[in-house]
């Protein structure tokens, strides 16, 4: 992996023209999301794995400038406090330090001199020691241990740490190999004792991972195989863009989901993932046999049902679920249709069906935009070809840039639209929600038209006309998108939105 300094940059939130220049070279220069869509800038920094390690070292050093303890101890303490320096300092100076070290499972470095290393369990046999793991009697030079005094031979340490790292996936919290000894093995000791590079690499990975995961101000880029993390100065639901091009919400790690909020989005995702929709389908499309409760789907035929469960074989009416006998000879019609009980059953079923349809309505539209967004890369590629072709037809580079801008805006609109359906699904009907839906409809229509323009063939003759149309349309789309988002955000501020429990 080739990590370089250039990956670390501060995003000022401004749209730099530099990004546009890149486009001519890279096909995936699509990552041009408008980050300062609203309100003030949000400061963040993208860190490579190396930079994360450096950041971790810096954190330790920061603490060590104040607290004079070994850096390995500092690391264990920091990890114990989820890398919150302030919390550590506070406890360090306010509380009982002995307790602090004990809680963090590390030996108090100030006590080291006063309690001489005692060899607790290994028996000394005239200048040699016995390793408690392999029971080999070895010269002291081949034995080692932590400050707790439990000593084992190098080979056993290596095996022990390897098992912990490779099999159990423990990093920062490996304890001494002795029974009931809580003292943690520090990183330098692990690196000193483990010989295999694979294990060392995994260990490094585990401790950086726990560093990022424990640290509120850091988040791994959720994009597959991406090794970068994003660092912020305060946690907020804001879009951040990784060096790999992926834009996501810092607070929840999902794709940037304006206008819907993290909590609602999480509910939606859970709903989509859950089998609950399968059961909704079952509720809407099936009934249970009144005798044996087997689930039955009626796929045709008359209302006289005979349960196919061999041990049941109940005769009943599909409509009222009552026994078939009283229906007499009216085989195709249930004359008990309007009885209260049947009515109630019918209502319940209709309600459940309506609910499912409502979900499917929003889900389809959500999925549809998601699908279209996935074609984004393809569209960028075809647009790039078009732009090159146009440049061969005596158009200047600058004159064809509108196409790329159009795709950028198209993608932004699609993404916003996609999440408006999540928002709308949970939204209760109010005057404001009607305005919202109008905005949504307007943006949707405009976006689809822009999409259509971009798929048209561009020839020398219609070029001027198309360019005009595309430019008009994308300006309109962008304006509508901003208006929609602003309206939703205003609603958040003024508490317009009411949610349903669906």
């Amino acid at each position, binding site marked *: 992996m080739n990590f370089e300094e250039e990956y670390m940059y501060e995003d000022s939130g401004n749209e730099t023209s530099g990004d546009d220049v890149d486009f001519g070279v890279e096909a995936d220069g699509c990552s041009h999301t408008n980050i300062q869509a609203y309100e003030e800038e949000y400061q963040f920094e993208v860190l490579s794995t190396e930079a994360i390690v450096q950041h971790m070292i810096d954190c330790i050093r920061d603490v060590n400038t104040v607290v004079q303890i070994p850096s390995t101890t500092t690391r264990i303490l920091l990890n114990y406090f989820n890398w919150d320096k302030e919390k550590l300092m506070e406890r360090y100076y306010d509380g009982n330090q002995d307790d602090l070290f004990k809680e963090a499972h590390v030996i108090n470095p100030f006590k080291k001199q006063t309690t001489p290393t005692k060899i607790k*369990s290994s028996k000394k046999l005239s200048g040699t020691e016995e390793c408690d793991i*392999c*029971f080999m009697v070895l010269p002291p030079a081949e034995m080692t241990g932590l400050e707790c005094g439990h000593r084992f031979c190098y080979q056993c340490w290596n*095996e*022990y740490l390897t*098992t912990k790292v490779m099999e159990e996936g423990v990093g920062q919290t490996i304890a001494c*190999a*002795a029974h009931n000894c809580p003292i943690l093995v520090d990183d330098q000791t692990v690196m000193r004792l483990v010989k295999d590079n694979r294990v060392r690499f995994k260990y490094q990975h585990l401790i950086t991972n726990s560093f990022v995961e424990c640290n509120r101000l850091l988040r791994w880029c959720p994009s597959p195989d991406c090794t970068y993390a994003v660092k912020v100065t305060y946690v907020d639901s804001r879009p951040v863009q990784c060096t790999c091009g992926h834009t996501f919400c810092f607070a929840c790690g999902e794709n940037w989901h304006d206008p819907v909020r993290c909590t609602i989005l999480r509910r939606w995702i859970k709903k989509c993932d859950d089998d609950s929709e399968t059961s909704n389908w079952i509720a809407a499309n099936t009934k249970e046999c009144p005798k044996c409760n087997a689930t039955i789907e009626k796929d045709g035929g008359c209302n006289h049902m005979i349960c196919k469960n061999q041990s049941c074989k109940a005769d009943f009416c599909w409509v009222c679920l009552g026994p078939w006998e009283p229906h007499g000879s009216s085989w195709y019609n249930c004359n008990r249709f309007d009885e209260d009980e049947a009515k109630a059953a019918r209502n319940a079923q209709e309600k459940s069906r309506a609910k499912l349809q409502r979900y499917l309505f929003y889900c389809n539209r959500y999925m549809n935009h998601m699908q279209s967004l996935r074609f984004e890369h393809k569209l960028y590629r075809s647009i790039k070809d078009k732009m090159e072709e146009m440049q061969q037809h005596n158009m200047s580079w600058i004159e064809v840039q509108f196409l790329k801008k159009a795709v950028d805006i198209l993608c932004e609109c699609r993404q916003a639209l996609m999440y408006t359906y999540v928002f709308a699904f949970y939204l209760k009907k109010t005057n404001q929600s009607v305005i919202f839906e109008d905005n949504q409809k307007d943006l949707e229509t405009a976006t689809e038209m822009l999409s259509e323009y971009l798929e048209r063939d561009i020839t020398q003759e219609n070029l001027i006309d198309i360019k005009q149309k595309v430019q008009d349309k994308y300006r309109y789309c962008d304006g509508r998108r901003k208006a929609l988002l602003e309206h939703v955000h205003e609603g958040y501020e003024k508490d317009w939105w009411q949610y349903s429990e669906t």
Partner: protein
Amino acid sequence: MANIATQRIKREFKEVIKSEEVAKCAIRVQLVDDNYTELKGEIAGPPDTPYEGGNFVLEIKVPETYPFNPPKVRFITKIWHPNISSVTGAICLDILKDQWAAAMTLRTVLLSLQALLSSAEPDDPQDAVVAKQYKDKLDMFEKTARHWTHVYAGGPCYNQEFADKIKRLEDMGVEENQARVALSSYNWDLERATEQLFSS
């Protein structure tokens, strides 16, 4: 088998054989095969418990990665205990799972198991039926455990009442062990045990 594991077991074997507990007949280990992957352990039921006077046999399987992973141990002798399955002999003990430490040995394992026999942990049960009896009817539990110790582990306490009840079920064609499990599970209520045996 990995070098460390074999070496360890060989050394431990000697340690257990030499230990003072062996002298007191409290614990014992034997080899089952020549390559030290399987051993047979024995522990004496601790005094002042329902297991007193019994001798319990254990199956010990040594994994490739020993001593960095714990040995796999289960009771071969049937036993009535909240943390040991009355059916399979599987043991619920922290040091045989996540609390295992490389510096522990067969000797410490056997001693821990012996300690488990004297102090059960009914809140962390392996056998829910036994644990419930232990918590609700301690007296009944102790009688039952003593009876099991007598039948399977050679303990001294014979229980005429229990033996009669088992005999009654056997007369109805129920296999002896099955009858014992059913009676033990229903606090030696012959009627309910019969019901359970013949309803399934």
